[in-house]
């Protein structure tokens, strides 16, 4: 009865603290770090959303010549490369295929850019040699 009352008070506190050699020790090869200290494995919460190219979410069609003409040189009618347009792989391929189709089907001029689209806003960062 007295023992039960003693146990109810709380964890047993010794008069002399436990010496180092009597503390519970684990073998070095079996040592497991205490779980509370280690960092929790999680995905980077500060990750930025992936960058989107200009045409992300816009469907490319061979019929809208205005959109296709924005990726074509005004002087020669050449299709600009990926390093100039800044498009992702998928969209660059789609644009190229659509431009080629528009050329063959007779929707878009080949050797130059349609004059009515010359004043369109510039998407590609073309650098002409000095």
């Amino acid at each position: 009865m007295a023992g039960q009352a003693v146990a109810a008070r709380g964890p047993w506190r010794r008069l002399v603290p436990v010496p180092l050699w009597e503390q519970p020790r684990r073998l070095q090869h079996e040592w497991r770090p205490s779980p509370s200290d280690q960092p929790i494995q999680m995905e980077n919460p500060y990750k930025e959303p992936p960058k989107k190219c200009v045409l992300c979410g816009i469907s490319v069609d061979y019929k809208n010549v205005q959109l296709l003409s924005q990726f074509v040189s005004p002087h020669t009618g050449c299709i600009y490369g990926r390093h100039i347009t800044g498009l992702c792989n998928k969209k660059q391929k789609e644009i190229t295929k659509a431009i080629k189709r528009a050329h063959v089907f007779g929707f878009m001029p080949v050797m130059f850019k349609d004059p009515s689209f010359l004043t369109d806003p510039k998407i590609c960062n073309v650098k002409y040699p000095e």
Partner: protein
Amino acid sequence: MPRYELALILKAMQRPETAAVLKRTVEALMERGAIVRNLENLGERSLPYKISKHKERHRRGGYFLIDLEGPPSIVSTMMDHLGRDIDVIRRAFIKHPVSKTEECSGIIPVNYEDKLIAKKK
């Protein structure tokens, strides 16, 4: 579901003649077992370049778009048929573009170093 799209460029003609050409084209399509869904007129505009067809040099043309559903055998027969029509400047069959704005996940940075090192099997 629309299976094919026929982009047609017709000679710049008066309205009744254009109507006659379109009528016989659609009839030819229906004869071969196609279902014509829609016929759009994209207007009469000047061609992007001069096209010589059937011993004539064309500068203007009427653009038409027909979406139809039909058997795959229709493509070669119709291209043949339209090639013999004098009023048709250019014809083109395409699989109907299923216009759906796919969720573009954005530009994923490619790890070029991993590609350089040959993978040991």
